[in-house]
């Protein structure tokens, strides 16, 4: 038979909407998460005793009755730690596993109980007597600013002369916006299962985005080298950044119990403990001041941000930096100053969350543009389009990086047209005049998101590929699977490289024993980095196979071609399996590692200059909402999204990221509210009180498209673009649309100072305040 399918026709090829590799396991309940693994005999269960105070000195910790309670095998405190009592991801020494003298948030671990059953551990923990000497606690960001509790010096970004530009501008405005934090609410809570091995060895199954860091910090805690610790994760039940730095604490406690008792030990936080004990998205205070011209073109901008970091540094420096890098969002600012303070509070230490400060950073300028448009009586879209980064690469970001790949002008215009934005906006304004209780609003907002870890050395990845002599392939890489479809995408890359079906590629659990020194699966960079590393490994093996076949058949290497299911060697053909078998017989190594380091990126934090990002991901969304001006209740009525995923590796997976990211962002900006009481206790620590979106919050009319023209200008893996984080920020369109509707409630006479999340309460209060101002005019 001479019929040969084209390379892209086989099921595993890239750019095809292949289903998630675990989908059938998900729907049959046979996908194993850490807590589903069969426990070894003798497994202990751990419960953590937490601080009840936000800030206190520990006068005495009496655990006597805990130790003697039924079923208890070990009670662990700081004194039991053989190595270092710290799990700070940046080795700041400020993230103790167990508090020693001082507690700095309500929920901070003080001790742990390992018992025969979880119930026994929990019951015992309640018998602890802890004597606190209460100290003054700083809970809110404004309190922290008043007390100047900066955890770290804040770098600055400066382009041109912003102050002069602002004073020389014909129009100026300034304002403040508070943006709330967000709990990750991954459906699977934090969990680790530690199994002691011989000698100092420790195997930890952890639900983590960052196995190498868990490995290292567990090693430090135990006082053993990294080589003694193996961390493995097949899949997480969601991560969203919440399993980047946080799992080290959980794994460390489990490993400590395992070391101290010599028995396997599991720590799984229930939802409440998880929400109380582990970090969240930073809430921010955003102060802005801008000068602009009569067309709304921004002449100069000053952004002063403050992030609530909570009790320790964690990843706050990088997060606040990324907020600064996104203060411009999609807009070319000829003169700009950006600054972001990192404030300590006596609340849980905040951490990575999808977007990593970027979303918060963008909120200020999106708000400011809405306000400029209001002041000028213009359509905010016109003002946005007047300011977007030009395609010609002439504009610099506030960190002096030329934006050479901007598609914003084209993308926003295409979306404005396909969503019928302008007609709808006019219709909405007309209908608002007729409607008293209910007002509608609409907004189009763009996103430009920088891709790469801004800590340059993290932009590296490794992979390991084995080809077995039957032609089947074992794939391993440093990335972790949390639902984002990384495994299937990298599997597609390898299948494409060998010209084989995806089901011939076995996608295996991430483990520090196979690929070392990995970076977190984060910064949206999972498939960019690991896809390239896996492609490199496959390329090495392919080259060996080609050399072998060429030699054997006495032809040039370029005449060995890997196609769908077949390898063409000159004018002969054989299956990939046949060639693998022959190569094995010919004593060719069929295993290779692959490595990738993102080229051309550099950044100098001291001067605030460089090229921290390899490229930018772009997207835009239009949201239409209706609000009830009597109660502040909101409905999102329609959403149109156009997103640039480059040449998507897997459009089905990417569509899922776009929709899921948008809805998660919508929750952040509308219904998800973290509420601490005056004593600094989080009162929204379960889904009964913390409200993420449900199916009914998703508008029926949701039109999502991956931009057909998308193609990465940089030679990324098959010219795709990262897609994990950017879509979350598309939900800013909903926030702007709500602002527009609230403005309608004042008869378009005052601009409402709405903070996020835009709960019914905040909307009602913003309308009331703005209406008051309108009345005074």
């Amino acid at each position, binding site marked *: 038979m001479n019929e040969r399918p084209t390379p892209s026709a086989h099921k595993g090829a890239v750019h095809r909407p292949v289903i998630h590799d*675990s989908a059938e396991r*998900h729907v049959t309940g046979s996908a194993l998460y850490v807590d589903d693994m069969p426990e070894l005999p003798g497994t202990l269960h751990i419960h953590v005793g937490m601080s009840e105070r936000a800030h206190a000195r520990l006068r005495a910790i009496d655990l006597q009755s805990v130790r003697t309670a039924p079923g208890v095998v070990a009670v662990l405190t700081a004194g039991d730690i053989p190595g270092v009592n710290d799990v700070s991801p940046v080795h700041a020494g400020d993230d103790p596993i167990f508090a020693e003298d001082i507690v700095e948030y309500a929920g901070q671990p003080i001790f742990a109980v390992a018992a025969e059953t979880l119930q026994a551990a929990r019951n015992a923990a309640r018998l602890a007597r802890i004597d606190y000497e209460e100290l003054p606690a700083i809970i809110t960001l404004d309190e922290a600013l008043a007390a100047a509790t900066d955890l770290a010096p804040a770098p600055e970004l400066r382009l041109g002369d912003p102050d002069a530009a602002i004073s020389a501008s014909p129009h100026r405005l300034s304002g403040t916006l508070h943006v709330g934090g967000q709990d990750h609410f991954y459906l699977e809570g934090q969990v680790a299962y530690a199994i002691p091995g011989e000698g100092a060895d420790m195997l930890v199954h952890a639900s983590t985005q960052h196995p190498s860091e868990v490995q290292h910090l567990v090693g430090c805690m135990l006082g053993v080298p990294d080589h003694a610790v193996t961390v493995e994760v097949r899949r997480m039940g969601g991560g969203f950044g919440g399993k980047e730095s946080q799992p080290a604490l959980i794994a460390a406690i489990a490993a400590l119990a395992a070391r101290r008792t010599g028995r396997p030990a599991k720590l799984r936080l229930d939802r409440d403990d998880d929400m109380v004990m582990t970090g969240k998205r930073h809430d921010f205070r955003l102060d802005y001041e801008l000068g602009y011209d009569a067309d709304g073109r921004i002449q100069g901008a000053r952004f002063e941000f403050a992030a609530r970091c909570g009790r320790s540094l964690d990843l706050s420096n990088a997060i606040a930096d990324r907020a600064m890098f996104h203060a411009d969002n999609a807009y070319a600012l000829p003169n700009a100053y950006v600054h972001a303070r990192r404030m300590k509070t006596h609340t849980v230490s905040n951490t990575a969350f999808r977007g990593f400060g970027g979303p918060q950073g963008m909120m200020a300028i999106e708000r400011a543009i809405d306000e400029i448009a209001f002041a000028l009586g213009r359509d905010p879209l016109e003002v946005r389009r007047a300011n977007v980064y030009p395609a010609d690469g002439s504009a610099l970001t506030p960190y002096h990086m030329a934006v050479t790949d901007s598609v914003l002008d084209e993308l926003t215009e295409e979306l404005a047209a396909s969503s019928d934005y302008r007609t709808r906006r006019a219709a909405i304004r007309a209908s608002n005049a007729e409607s008293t209780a209910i007002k509608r609003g609409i907004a189009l907002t763009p996103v430009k998101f920088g891709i790469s870890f801004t800590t340059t050395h993290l932009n590296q990845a490794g992979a390991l590929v084995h080809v077995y002599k039957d032609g089947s392939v074992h794939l391993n890489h440093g990335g972790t699977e949390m639902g984002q479809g990384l495994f299937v995408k990298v599997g597609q890359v390898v299948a494409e490289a060998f010209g084989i079906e995806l089901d011939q590629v076995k996608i295996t659990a991430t483990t520090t024993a196979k690929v070392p020194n990995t970076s977190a699966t984060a910064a949206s960079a999972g498939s960019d980095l690991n896809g390239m590393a896996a492609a490199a490994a496959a390329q090495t093996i392919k080259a060996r196979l080609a050399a072998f076949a060429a030699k054997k058949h006495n032809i040039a290497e370029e005449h060995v071609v890997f196609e769908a299911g077949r390898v063409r060697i000159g004018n002969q053909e054989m299956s990939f399996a046949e060639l693998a078998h022959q190569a094995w017989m010919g004593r060719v190594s069929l295993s290779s590692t692959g490595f990738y380091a993102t080229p051309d990126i550099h950044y100098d934090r001291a001067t605030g200059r460089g090229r921290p990002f390899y490229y930018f991901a772009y997207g835009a969304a239009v949201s239409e909402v209706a609000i009830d001006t009597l109660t502040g209740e909101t409905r999102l009525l329609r959403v149109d999204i156009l997103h640039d995923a480059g040449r998507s590796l897997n459009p089905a997976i990417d569509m899922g990221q776009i929709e*899921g990211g948008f809805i998660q962002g919508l929750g952040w900006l509308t219904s998800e*509210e973290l509420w601490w009481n005056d004593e600094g206790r989080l009162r929204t620590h379960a889904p009964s*009180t913390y409200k993420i979106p449900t199916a009914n919050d998703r508008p029926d009319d949701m039109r999502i498209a991956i931009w057909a023209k998308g193609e990465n200008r940089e030679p990324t893996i098959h010219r795709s673009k990262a897609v994990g984080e950017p879509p979350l920020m598309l939900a800013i369109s909903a926030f702007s649309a709500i602002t527009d509707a609230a403005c309608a409630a004042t008869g378009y006479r005052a601009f409402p100072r709405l903070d996020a999340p835009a709960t*019914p309460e905040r909307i009602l209060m913003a309308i009331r305040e703005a209406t008051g101002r309108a009345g005074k005019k």
Partner: protein
Amino acid sequence: MGDAIRFLLGEDEHEISGVSPTMTVLEWLRGHARRRGTKEGCAEGDCGACTVVLAEPGGAGGLRTWPVNSCIHFIPALHCRQLLTVEDVAAPDGALHPVQQALVDLHGSQCGFCTPGFVMQHYAGWLAGSLTDRAAVKDWLAGNLCRCTGYGPIIEAGLAAGRADGPDTARRAATARRLDTLDDGRMLDLRHEDQRWLTPRTSDELARVYADNPDAILVSGATDVGLWVTKQHRRLTTLIDVTRVSDLAEIRDEEEALVIGGAAKLAAAHGPLARLSPDLGELMRRFASIQIRSAGTVGGNIANGSPIGDLAPALIALGAQLSLRHGDRERTIALEDFFIDYGRQDRAPGEFVAAISIPRPGATSRFACYKLSKRFDQDISAVMGAFRIDMTEGRVTAARIAFGGMAATPKRACNAEAALIGTAFQADAVERACAELAADFAPITDMRASATYRLESAANLLRRFHLEVSGAPTSATRVWELA
């Protein structure tokens, strides 16, 4: 008396004895049965990851099926029933069920942790024939959270499953027959360590058992009581399960009133309440989730005395009467009189809610109720307002306004009511009544809302009622009706 829980797990008969009766179905599945497809996402009935399906003989097809949150259901709920989990859905040869296939084909799972719950919720919908259109599918999913997908593909999968062929009736009938043989009609009396669980089968039996054990805790749907165990980690000793008291679950559509038995499920009451007033139907649609409503009861919602329960304000505004029974004695009180203070109700030890009687609003009445919460679906109300006025010859002759979330109990707004009586229910009178709300209520600030918002929005709900009574179409006053 029976001392073992007998049920079908999938097709296999199981018996449980010698364990704590307040063990949850989820704990039993994951820990004892080692079925780990069912997940725990919250242990409080709010995320749906633990959803399983229960079946018992009865209903239209001979087998009644409904989804429940296994995380807050105690194992005695399994007695004489079939328990189906995500492991039971595919065919024995491994062929995926249409519900599963649609979720796979439409990319309905990402991390997959919520997926078993969605599979079971869709499966329950498919069994019940409830996946009829988009709105129905979304309502059906109100109790299932997914943090990854944004729901679109899951909703599509529900619609696709709804179009597939329905369940095999012969197999259902066979299951019903097997279940029938499990039930010997006797009361269960489970004992374990210091715990005891009793399941009387008739009201008389309940009255006797409860009078004999006045310190016992009554358990109905356990959508509150379950959380005392899973969240507050309380050890409950003697429990009396009212869900097997068949005559207590009756709902009677009488001419003057709707009479709901003390153990009637919220789901069963949904239709009759909706017929009494469309607003009550809408309230029930937004009350928790299908899973919770399939287990929880109207009686439990009243008896728990919660200041933020949804039904009490609505039923108070409608003038409902509450019947309480102790031994052979039954008394009837006005519903509002049941609520004395926070955590205190007019209910003696050994006394139980026998029935709630809701008078039908007459032709001269206007009634509306509004639930206000941060999220539309499955959220506890920040404020729940219910309004009923009777007008004769253009004048308000009676006004009953009740709120939840505004005081330590569900409470009438007597001052506001008084400001309306005798008026023509026009804007000025309504404004006076709104101002009186500050005299009626001094609400608290908590994570659901501030005191200011509560007072202000309560007044605005009265204004909304006025707009609607004055003829505004609900499309101009009810933002949730817009799509």
